[in-house]
Every structure is written in C-alpha cells, then in structure tokens.
C-alpha cells in the first residue's frame, strides 16, 4: 500500500504545483480573514478565548476550500475509474488524500499563524509554542481525516460546494471546541503552565475514532 500512497501523493502534488488550485486559495482566505478581523473587530489585539476562536474558525473554513477540491481531478479527469480498475488497496486513496490535505493545512499554517500573531495576537505564543504545535498537529489530523471522507462523499454529488461544508462543519465542531479550549491558555500571558492536556486527549480520541471509521467506510464511498 505504501507504494500506491506514494504514487498518489506524488501525482497530486504535481497537479497542485502545476495548477495551484487549492493551496493559494486556502492561504489567501486565511490571511485575508485575519486582516478582516484585525479591522472589523476594531481592537488592537486579541488574547485568550477570542483569539483561539478566531484562529480555529478561520483555519477550519480555509480547510473546507481544500476539501472541496480534493477529489475534483479524480472525478473530472477519470482518475476514479483508473484507480478503481487497478489492483490496489482502495484505502490507499484515502490515506493519500488525507496526507495531502494534512500537508496543505501545515503549509497554510506556516504562513497563517505568523500572520495571525502579527495582526491579532497579543501576547504572542512565546514559550507555549511546543504545546501550540501539538494542538495544531492533532487538530489537522482530525480535519484531514474528516475532510477526506466528506470530500469523497461530496464529489459524487452535483452540489459539491454546498454538500462539503454542510456535512464537514458539524462533524468538525468537536475539533474546533477542543482545539480552541486547548489554545485559549496558550494565548494568554504565562498560558503554557496552565495547558489543559485533557483537550489534547479529546483531539487524539477524535482522530482515532474518525480514522477507524474512515478506514471502514471509505471503500463503500467509492462504489457507485
């Protein structure tokens, strides 16, 4: 399966580098949203729960843009048929697409988090950076797993742009709650000392449950 996943990821990265369909849109969306919040909230800076809420809602909505495009090339250019006729484990497609979405989210965060810190956050994450990274990784895994599942479901429908957010956003509410709760103390002075580890556990459990669920049902989503 590893070779199939590698072939799929390599192909998708090439397609993204040639067409630039997902990543620039996700980046532009997140940075412009932070700019809008900067001016719209009419506050010099944010901290605590408000900062955490703004960050996670923005990242989640940026992720939806990526989910919408995740399977479009497969659908519109016959990739599904070619893949379904190949003698490979179909779960490889799920793993490859989830890895791709996870990679897109990490790339977006590499730009969006510094932009968030500069435009909105006061104080900056400072010493709480390792804890923030742990929250980001676990939340990104959850978003990537659910996003891939919903992307595969949505691309089979004509109303893909509508269906994907309608299904993905409610399913990802627990991720936003847990990630925002875990991030809130990190965005306050000396927050790393009061880091709520239980929310990290919630994110880990969410990832495990939806990972297993996706593994079990993805094959059926590919059937007509």
């Amino acid at each position: 399966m590893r070779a199939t996943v590698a072939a799929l990821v390599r192909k998708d990265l090439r397609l993204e580098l040639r067409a630039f369909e997902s990543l620039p849109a996700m980046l532009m969306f997140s940075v412009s949203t932070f700019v809008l919040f900067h001016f719209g909230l009419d506050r010099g800076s944010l901290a605590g729960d408000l900062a955490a809420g703004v960050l996670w809602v923005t990242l989640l909505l940026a992720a939806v843009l990526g989910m919408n495009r995740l399977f479009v090339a497969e659908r519109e250019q016959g990739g599904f048929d070619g893949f379904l006729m190949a003698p490979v484990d179909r779960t490889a497609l799920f793993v490859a697409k989830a890895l791709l979405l996870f990679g897109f989210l990490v790339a977006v965060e590499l730009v969006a988090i510094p932009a968030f810190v500069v435009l909105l956050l006061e104080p900056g994450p400072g010493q709480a950076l390792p804890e923030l990274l742990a929250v980001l990784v676990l939340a990104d895994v959850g978003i990537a797993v659910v996003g891939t599942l919903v992307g595969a479901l949505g691309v089979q429908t004509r109303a893909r742009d509508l269906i994907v957010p309608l299904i993905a956003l409610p399913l990802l509410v627990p991720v936003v709650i847990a990630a925002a709760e875990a991030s809130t103390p990190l965005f306050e002075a000396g927050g790393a000392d009061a880091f709520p580890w239980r929310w990290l556990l919630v994110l880990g459990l969410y990832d495990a449950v939806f990972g297993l669920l996706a593994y079990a049902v993805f094959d059926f989503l590919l059937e007509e």
Partner: protein
Amino acid sequence: MATTGQGDSAPAVALEGVGRAYGERVALREITFALPAGATVAVFGANGAGKTTLLRILAGLLRPHAGTARVLGAELPREAFRARGRIGLLGHEPMLYRDLTVRENLRFHARLHGVALARIEELVAQVGLAARADEPVRTLSRGMTQRAAICRAALHAPELLLLDEPLANLDPGGAAAVQPLIGRGAGPARVLISHDAEQGLAEADHVLGLRGGRQAIWAPVADVALAEVRRLYA
C-alpha cells in the same frame, strides 16, 4: 504449469440476463452472451442503446441490477477484485490528468499496476508519441491524446480490452500505429464499440447489436449481414 482453474476455453466474458437501470430508466435488459478468450465482439447500437453502460459493467465500474456477469472468471460485483488489473478500458474520456505530461500519467498508472517503467518507453515509441511524451496532456491534439489513452489502456497488458470507438480522432498513421496494442491479433479478448459498421465487422468474431437496451443481435460475424447492423441505427 499454472492454471486459472477455469480451463483454456473459459469465456473472457459471460453475461446471463444482465440488466441495469438508472432510476426509472432501464438502460440494459436481458443481455446474454459469452465471449471466448482472445475473441472480439463488436457492439453496435444507436446512441442511448446501452453500449457504454455495458462497457462500464464489464469494467466493474457499474453494478448490474439483474442477471449474472462473469468477467475473466470473476463474478461481478462480488469478485470484482479478481478482475482488477486484468482489464484495459478505453472509454469516451482518456482517463489522463490534463496537467500532467503523457509520461507522468503513464508512470502513475504503471505504479498502480506494478508495471516496469521501461514499458512506457516501448509504448510511446510504438504509437509515435516519444517526442511529445513530456508535454502536458492538455496541450495535445485529440489524436495525440487518444494515442496516450491507448498507451494507458494497454500499459498493463490486459487480458480483456474494453474499447469505445478506439480509433476516434486518429489519422491513418495513428490508427496503424496502435493496431499492435489494441487491434485484432493483439492477444486480449476485446469488446469493441463502433459506429462504423464495416470496420467493426472486419475487426470482430462476434456481433452484439443493442436496440433500446435490448439485445437485438448476438451471432458469429459470418452470420450477420451489414444491412442488419445498419438497421440498428435506423
């Protein structure tokens, strides 16, 4: 010697009362025929007669709603996994990523099918695409794209080729170049959809005629007159 358990005379395709509907609309009904290994059936029928639906059922991409379908000894859809990787499909769409080059597309499919990458060079040279193989598919003419799609369909040396108008958009040189890959004598059994009755009959061992989703003709090619095929389009 390895055997398939089906014997050498096992048909490549065996359909018994196969039917398929899209909602209320019945696209195929009561299709029954057996195609011997290595033989070619030419499928004729007007637009909407069910030809593409038949091809997609045989490819394992659509489930039959009635009857039983066996392809390369595998009952569909229950044993479809046994037929995967042994069927080559050349449909309306080239099934190639437009932003990838021909070579990148073929490498991707070669990796999915566990085919040596050297085979790609053989194929692109065979169909006269070697000089254009590093260009994105979206920049190629329809004829060149069709040659690339034929390479993709034949890449893994399938035992069954499902061909929907395979020579569409090809110039005479291109049509001749792809013959060793998908033409008569290429080796695999073939299900060949064609609107060119004369050409289809020349390529076939058997004829399947579809009218409104029903089987109007199933006979050896020697028993079918050209006029009978043309009546399917009347």
